């Protein structure tokens, strides 16, 4: 009896390790190891056919001379600026309205605004490519018929319009998801805070400013950080937009939509097969993203102290 008891207790002690092991095994093997091993690769000269040659920081030095590296860096920052504010404003607006209890058809609105998130990026790239076509796209004919533009805009053929389209597509795709995050956050805020604010005579706007926004801060930090990191990852939609229909322009016109992921993809899996060089770019962008995230985090927490 006591023997079986102690065996059961022993099993209970080991069980949690066994239950977490599938996750950490798969994670370690396919996420952690590759990220660490990429650091080693970045210090070598390695291409498809040969063996790795240790070259120290040679790849890093080369990347610092590479104008495309700076393009990717700059584009990532530009996309952060073009994407984060509209995405947050639209998502906040929707989530506040849908939780206000004043709007009908909440379920339908929720579903419709989530549709872009469930649409595969290949479809998104293809459809927007057609809608934003220079000569025959709906967007240009709509703008012309409204009298906004005199002549057609070459959306996908010029740097800034291209960036605008990519940013727009990204906001379009992800704002519904961000809105769910905010919805979750708002649902978690205690009703009593609003009742107290009501008793103090606070208007709806004031309640939003002094109750909702501060209480949403953790969700906000999470959303901003993940969106920032997401800007480095943008790949699928522009890849479809700019290479999907015959033309093969890496990074869009003049590299205007070249992001970190695309640059790595092109160096390693495109025509070049330069594993070491691509890895060094991954690491430099990684450091850059960490730095920007850290600064943002500090900045947002500073706001809380004030």
């Amino acid at each position, binding site marked *: 009896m006591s023997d079986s008891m102690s065996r059961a207790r022993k099993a209970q002690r080991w069980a949690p390790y066994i239950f977490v092991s599938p996750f950490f095994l798969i994670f370690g093997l396919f996420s952690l190891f590759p990220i660490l091993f990429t650091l080693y690769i970045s210090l070598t000269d390695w291409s498809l056919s040969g063996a790795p040659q240790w070259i120290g920081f040679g790849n890093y030095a080369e990347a610092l001379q590479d104008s495309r590296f700076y393009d990717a860096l700059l584009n990532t920052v530009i996309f952060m600026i073009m994407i984060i504010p509209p995405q947050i404003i639209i998502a906040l607006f929707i989530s506040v309205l849908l939780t206000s209890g004043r709007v009908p058809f909440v379920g339908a609105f929720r579903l419709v605004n989530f549709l872009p998130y469930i649409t595969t990026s290949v479809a998104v790239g293809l459809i927007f490519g057609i809608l934003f076509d220079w000569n025959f796209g*709906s967007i240009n004919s709509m703008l012309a018929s409204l009298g906004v533009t005199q002549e057609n805009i070459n959306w996908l053929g010029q740097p800034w319009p291209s960036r605008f389209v990519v940013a727009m597509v990204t906001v379009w795709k992800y704002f519904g998801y961000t809105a769910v995050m905010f919805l979750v956050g708002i649902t978690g805020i205690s009703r009593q805070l609003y009742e107290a604010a009501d008793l103090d005579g606070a208007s709806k706007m004031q309640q939003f400013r002094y109750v909702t926004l501060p209480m949403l801060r953790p969700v906000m930090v999470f959303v901003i950080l993940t969106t920032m990191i997401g800007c480095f990852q943008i790949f699928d939609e522009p890849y479809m937009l700019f290479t999907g229909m015959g033309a093969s322009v890496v990074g869009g016109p003049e590299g205007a939509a070249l992001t970190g992921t695309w640059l790595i993809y092109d160096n390693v899996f495109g025509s070049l097969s330069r594993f070491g060089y691509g890895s060094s770019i991954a690491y430099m962008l990684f450091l850059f993203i960490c730095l920007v995230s850290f600064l943002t985090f500090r900045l947002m927490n500073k706001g809380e102290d004030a």
Partner: protein
Amino acid sequence: MRKLGINGWIGLLLMLVISVVSFYPFYSMIIMSTYESNELYTGIKLLPSSYLAENWNSLFSIDFLAYYKNSLIVSISTTVLGVLVSAAAGFAFGKYEFRFKNLLFVLLLGTMMIPMQFGIVAFVLEMRWFGWLNTMLPLIIPPAANAFGVFWMTQFARSSIPSEVLESGRIDGCGETGLFFRIVLPFLRPAFVTLGLLFFLWSWNSFFVPLIVLNDDSLYTIPLGIRALAGQFRADNAAQILGLTLGTIPVLLFFSIFSKNLIEGLASSAVKG
């Protein structure tokens, strides 16, 4: 529902505008699949045309059903595996005390912020060493370890599995693995729906990794197969769009059925922490 004030009406109107913008490209996709390719570029389409059958024929003249089947195999496998892996780890984090628990959990949360793209070069070389290139394994197994999934299940397990039930199971002589399959999994069922939906969606729509690891077009999933359609044959955009529309139907169905669960599930579990 209270009465709409003037602000309420403005809000509702803005909401409608956003929803139209949100819906229009999606609607376009469905409508465009009924047109002939060279008609796609002529003005705004709001009504369906009559070319659906022809697009259907050109789509099914290639092996579209094989792509569909591949997508189903990959997505269902990842979903089942991912939900189980997440549930096991979530159960351990939520209901046990053990050494290194907090350290491991912090590690887990930290990894949610690191995208796999940073390690993609070594990942692909690793797949080559394993002989996994041009197989479905890189699409099924690595995504099954998802930090968000574990976090999600931990929150749910902590709040919804009563420790007394686990104890009485142990007193009745149930082993720890038995507890997991017979008691824990049924308790976690509501969390499966939400997490399973997300796993399925991510896997179904995945493009970057399949693009890198698959060369053999008999293994292509829908996004890859549809993209290849542009290169291999004439650029039949309308047929491609029909394929993408058909490819969207499963996720659309799941999400319409479960969208209420999804949002409420997220709300009841993720934030309470």
